[in-house]
């Protein structure tokens, strides 16, 4: 099956080729702010209704329906806030930065539509600290949009609709992508996730008030949804995965790239092998494994290639589409090193609040380091799985949590995947003679 022509199906990357698409002039010329005008002709509740009809799934990683999340704001509690999660940091994920750099007004318009629909009185646009260019593109776009009357007092001249958008930027911490940690950070604190419940900041969020936290890509879809209707959006893609999604395909492929494809119908084989997309393996190489949805996701293999990029299917197959990051590894890959790379990431980025994550991820990293150094012990592979089991009992999918947020269990995924499939490669790193370890209780090896 050949993939559909990508140019015809783009919703949110349609301005990526427009040279001045990031400016107000370029944005207006290509239909910009029509969605906001349309929304303001509707009752706020009807705008929310269109987003529900669209069945827009959140694009940040968890894939929760945005329209449902919006509905969790307790009635009668004001003010409500919007916080945009632009803290893209999941390894392999590369889409929100592009959306912010190349089409900042589309995101701003999405924010305004969300604020209008839900009565959100202020929006905070939290951009990852390391993304200096995205910050300046958004600052320039916001300055233009304020001047032109799209943002701020009396949006489009309306006497009753005024909303400020505050550009905010982080300072380097992966964990801040977790929505309650993001709120802590936005309140000027260390970015550590909050204890649940409440599970959603929509009930208690920023400054203790109802707060909607949405991913950049999620919000970028709103102008199209309002302009074209939720039904038109739901008609694209699959039943439970509607519209389009942006995937970054990186690693050992011929033509790595960022592709917007129909959600739910395109397969992994299409996006990895089709010349319209990543173009298959590098010459002479074969597929070994791939990560379907960012570093937190369990790995997939050859037999998963014909699965569609559809949330439910991928969940049931034991992994997730996560943040739209497909990382491809060919037969030259040392999976022990790749596994160590991902686990090191989680160990380094653990905020330290929960013991199973703080201790577990760092011990996993240490054990893998000594295996790679040729100093592994014969029981180390079982020990790795035992530590994994302590972090996420049962090592199932979706993972059970012993922690406040999913960071700890995420470090379990690469180890469980790689050890199950490639145990012999780990064993090959162990010294020919098992190293005996003597403790006060005697030899344990």
């Amino acid at each position, binding site marked *: 099956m050949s993939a559909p022509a990508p140019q015809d199906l783009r919703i949110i990357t349609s301005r990526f080729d427009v040279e001045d698409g990031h400016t107000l002039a370029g944005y207006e010329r290509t239909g910009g702010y029509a969605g906001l005008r349309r929304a303001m002709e509707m009752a*706020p509740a009807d705008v929310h209704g269109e987003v529900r009809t669209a069945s827009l799934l959140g694009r940040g990683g968890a894939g929760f329906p945005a329209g449902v999340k919006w509905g969790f704001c307790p009635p009668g509690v004001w003010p409500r806030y919007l916080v945009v999660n632009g803290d893209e940091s999941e390894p392999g994920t*590369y889409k929100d930065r592009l959306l912010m750099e190349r089409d900042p007004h589309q995101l701003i318009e999405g924010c305004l539509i969300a604020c209008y629909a839900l009565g959100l009185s202020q929006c905070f646009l939290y951009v990852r600290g390391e993304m200096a260019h995205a910050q300046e593109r958004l600052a320039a776009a916001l*300055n233009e949009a304020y001047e032109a009357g799209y943002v701020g007092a009396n949006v489009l001249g309306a006497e009753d609709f005024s909303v400020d958008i505050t550009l*905010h930027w982080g*300072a380097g911490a992966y964990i801040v992508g977790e929505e309650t940690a993001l709120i802590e950070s936005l309140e000027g604190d260390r970015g550590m996730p909050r204890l649940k419940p409440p599970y959603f900041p929509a009930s208690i969020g920023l400054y203790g008030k109802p707060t909607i936290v949405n991913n950049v890509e999620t919000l970028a879809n709103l102008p199209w949804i309002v302009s074209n209707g939720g039904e038109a959006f739901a008609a694209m893609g699959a039943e439970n995965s509607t519209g389009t999604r942006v995937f970054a395909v990186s690693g050992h492929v011929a033509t*790595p790239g960022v592709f917007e494809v129909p959600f739910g119908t395109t397969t992994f084989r299409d996006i990895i092998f089709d010349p319209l997309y990543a173009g298959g393996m590098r010459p002479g190489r074969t597929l070994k494994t791939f990560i379907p949805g960012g570093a937190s996701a369990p790995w997939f293999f050859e037999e998963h290639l014909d699965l569609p990029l559809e949330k439910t299917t991928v969940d049931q197959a034991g992994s997730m589409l996560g943040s739209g990051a497909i990382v491809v590894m060919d037969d030259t890959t040392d999976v022990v090193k790749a596994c160590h790379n991902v686990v090191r990431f989680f160990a380094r*980025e653990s905020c330290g609040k929960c013991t199973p994550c703080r201790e577990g991820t760092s011990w996993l990293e240490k054990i893998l380091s000594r295996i790679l150094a040729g100093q592994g012990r014969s029981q180390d592979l079982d020990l790795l799985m035992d530590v994994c089991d302590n972090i996420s009992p049962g090592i199932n999918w979706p993972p059970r949590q012993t922690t406040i947020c999913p960071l700890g269990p995420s470090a379990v995924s690469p180890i469980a995947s790689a050890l199950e499939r490639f145990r012999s490669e780990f064993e090959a790193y162990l010294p020919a003679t098992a190293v005996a370890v003597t403790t006060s209780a005697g030899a344990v090896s």
Partner: protein
Amino acid sequence: MARLNANNLTVAQDILSRYPVPRSALIPLLHLAQEQDGYVAEDAMAHIAELVGVTPAEVMGTCSFYEMLKREPVGDYMVNICNGISCHLLGSSELIHHAEATLGVRPGGTTDDGKITLEAVECIAACTEAPCLQINYRYRNQVTTEDFDQLVEDLRDGTAGVAPHGQLAKVRQHIGDDRRAGVSPPDGQGEPAWMARNPSDNGDGS
């Protein structure tokens, strides 16, 4: 070094005006201090504490959580080589080893001339451009060892076209006084006016 200077104090007040609770401006203000001095000086943290209305210890508590905020002087140029999984697969470890050998420092270290601080960092969201790096948070894509050597030469000659460490965005948000919706404290607000809109009452569609 120093407290925020007069110019930056004006910038700081502008930043503070965009938040309903001053403490929320802490991280942007710490970046501002770093832009001024190249790192976040202790006096600057004390000054920010006064501006935000918290103790210097609380400012330090926040500052020390985030990797970008440096509490000691660093080189003019932070060279941050990505070691995320996508870059790892396409040779970031070799690039990091090459950088260590070329610069004579380990990640976290600064060259003797004070020009360059090397870091090996986690994924910086340029995964299709692996291996990549940032110099003071500006990207260089698909970097070879030859590219790296040229880059180091350009940085030492001052011809790389990168601003000194501390500055992030070259454009700041600015809201004209007549364009502000107006930031209110989080307590004592009622339902926003537009939520009473019900255009369908006027025969619009339904």
